């Protein structure tokens, strides 16, 4: 499944309609200290500052300098409270996975044990410097030539400088280890302090070392995650915990425009919970043979059998040869789709037909899967095509300006439409994975209606969007597109709100377990 592919090239004005700007600033810092705070985000009533939509979560986006400052502040604070050096404060904080409260409490109780455990043994603090010691033989490389330069950590374990450097290089460059590099001596768990490192390593190693240290701050904290977009250095803070992922889908948007799930770091997959997504993606990968067949880019016209290639996001297909109009998804007549409610989004369970023998049952279950997969894959593909179109949108906008005399601002509605299309397709795509695991109850009908409404709106917008420039110049169409764009966004919010509310209140019944046995969507290690 292509997941890296859906970065929005630009999220701006339109985003604000859905993602209220102030979301990024709700909840003061004190809410986000360290573990164990109550789950404020689930229960919107408790959030006195503002009534939040059920599908939204509180989060903040930090830039690298913010993250550095947070670390520095913590180090300074501990440095002052415990009256230890900044260097030691940093090591202790890392040892306590940046849980300042626990560090201070533990340190007050039993300072020596804490220092020992963190590798900051107080005993024998020697002068840290490189020198040659008469009669010294390095126990690692076994060199013993006179004048051999050596170094000893606070624990007194002395090795030649070359060995220390090679050891550190192996740890830092080879293993990406930084915060907890121990003394190279067998059985000694002293952690090499920053001062010794400054003495021992070459500048390019120091750089990588500090980079790795910087990363541990984010990787050690459950409420922080790197934005997974390539080349993005931002960090998102969100209080949603792993255990809550069966009740909430924490979609967040980075300042770079990338929308992703805080729970599993995949692209935003609302309304489907992380565990369903994981299962669905696995199922799709396992069934890739079928999936490949299904997601093929070409189909045959149901009327004249000539091959038709899908080249835009719209599902309204018109055969070039016979002019037959049909729906790409169900291959049914388009005329039946456009006017009234259509059943393209719902798999009609063949009620009454008891499939007794295993073969028929498995065929039905495959058909059921294919039904949902087909629609999922279709929206995924369309979202991708729509994105290509978005890249072309700029060109289109330039052309339209020439054609119609509209200003750059006046053609922005095309960009808004393009963004809405992509975001709605992304949501629609996951509604089908969601529906696949959904067991029928009295709520499923509302869900399917919402899905249908959104789907129809999206198809309509997609179709308008693909009209030739000449007709786009028509001011009437512009109004129509703008209306449809805001309608699509509205329908998306309605759908998300309904699913999120029911999820938070545990009212959905799934035909699979939502408690992930080994879901490790943990912090993705990058670089």
């Amino acid at each position, binding site marked *: 499944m292509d997941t890296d592919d859906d970065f929005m090239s630009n999220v701006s004005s339109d985003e604000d309609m859905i993602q209220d700007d102030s979301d990024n600033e709700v909840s003061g810092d004190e809410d986000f200290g360290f573990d164990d705070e109550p789950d404020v985000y689930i229960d919107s009533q408790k959030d006195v500052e503002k009534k939040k939509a059920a599908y939204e979560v509180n989060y903040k986006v930090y830039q690298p300098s913010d993250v550095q400052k947070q670390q520095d502040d913590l180090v300074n604070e501990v440095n002052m409270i415990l009256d230890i050096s900044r260097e030691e404060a940093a090591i202790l904080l890392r040892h306590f996975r940046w849980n300042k409260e626990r560090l201070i409490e533990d340190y007050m109780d039993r300072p020596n044990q804490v220092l020992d455990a963190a590798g900051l043994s107080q005993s024998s603090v020697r002068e840290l410097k490189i020198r040659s010691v008469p009669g010294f033989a390095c*126990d*690692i*490389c*076994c*060199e013993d030539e006179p004048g051999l330069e050596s170094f000893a950590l606070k624990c007194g374990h002395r*090795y030649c400088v*070359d*060995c220390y450097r*090679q*050891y550190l*290089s*192996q740890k830092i460059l*080879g*293993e990406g*280890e930084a915060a907890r590099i*121990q003394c*190279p*001596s*067998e*059985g*000694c768990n002293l952690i090499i302090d920053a001062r010794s490192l400054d003495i021992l390593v070459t500048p390019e190693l120091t750089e990588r070392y500090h980079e790795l240290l910087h990363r541990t701050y984010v990787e050690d904290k459950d409420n922080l995650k790197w934005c997974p977009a390539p080349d993005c250095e931002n960090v998102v803070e969100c209080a949603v915990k792993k255990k809550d992922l069966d009740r909430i889908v924490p979609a967040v948007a980075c300042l770079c425009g990338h929308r992703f799930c805080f729970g599993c770091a995949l692209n935003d997959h609302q309304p489907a919970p992380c565990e369903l997504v994981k299962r669905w993606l696995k199922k799709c990968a396992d069934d890739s043979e079928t999936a490949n067949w299904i997601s093929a880019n070409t189909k045959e016209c149901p009327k004249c059998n000539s091959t038709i290639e899908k080249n835009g996001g719209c599902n309204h297909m018109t055969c070039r040869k016979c002019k037959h109009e049909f729906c790409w998804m169900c291959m049914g007549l388009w005329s039946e789709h456009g006017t009234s409610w259509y059943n393209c989004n719902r798999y009609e369970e063949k009620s009454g037909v008891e499939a007794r023998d295993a073969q028929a049952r498995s065929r039905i279950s495959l058909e059921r899967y294919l039904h949902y997969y087909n629609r999922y894959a279709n929206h995924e593909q369309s979202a991708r095509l729509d994105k290509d179109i978005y890249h072309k949108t700029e060109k289109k906008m330039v052309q339209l300006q020439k054609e119609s005399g509209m200003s750059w601002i006046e053609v922005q509605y095309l960009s808004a439409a393009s963004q809405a299309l992509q975001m709605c397709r992304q949501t629609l795509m996951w509604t089908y994975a969601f529906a696949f695991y959904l067991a029928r109850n009295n709520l499923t009908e509302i869900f399917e209606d919402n899905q249908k409404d959104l789907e129809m709106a999206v198809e309509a917008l997609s179709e308008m969007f693909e009209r030739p420039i000449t007709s786009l110049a028509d001011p009437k169409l512009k109004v129509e597109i703008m209306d449809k764009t805001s309608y699509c966004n509205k329908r998306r919010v309605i759908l998300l709100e309904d699913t999120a509310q029911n999820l938070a209140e545990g009212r959905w019944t799934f035909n699979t377990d939502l408690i992930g046995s080994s879901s490790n969507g943990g912090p993705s290690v990058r670089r």
Partner: protein
Amino acid sequence: MTSNKRITKELAECTTHPPVGITVTLPNDSDLHTWHVILDGPEDSVYAGGKFGLVVKLPTEYPFKAPTITFSTRIYHPNVTNDSPGNICLGLLKSDKWKPSTRLASVLESVRALLEEPQPEDPLEARIADEYRTDRKEFEKNARAYVQRYAKGPVKFDASSAGPADGNASQPGAATATATATGSGGSRT
């Protein structure tokens, strides 16, 4: 280059004062990075009377990177893969645990200690670990049968000829160098 002095010293120590039940040889004089080790099954263990071949590979970064050790003789043990070559799970060889000051002699002694006392909590063969915990008699019977079958003849270090039952179980890339001086890919001077 820098590691040769260390390796030479370790080799000398292991051959002049070998640890109990351990015999070290260098199959190819020009390659300090491949050792052949014969491990005598500890007397008070089910492996008593067996001789087990170990192939020790020292990476070029040794001692900053841990050696790799494989059983060229098949062995029935919770912490050794039940194939040939048998991979071994040893805590101190893991990259986050390995210390460059650790000597091969003590690594080999830990391997031998593992034969005396298997660690079923951290198994490579879950089935054998289960059996060890729940049906010790059956485990001992099987382990002894393996000793009789594989660990009695002359010790072989070539995985593909390690035993009668599995001529082709060797994994690509894990095949060990034999005493014939071919393919000195790892030799450094």
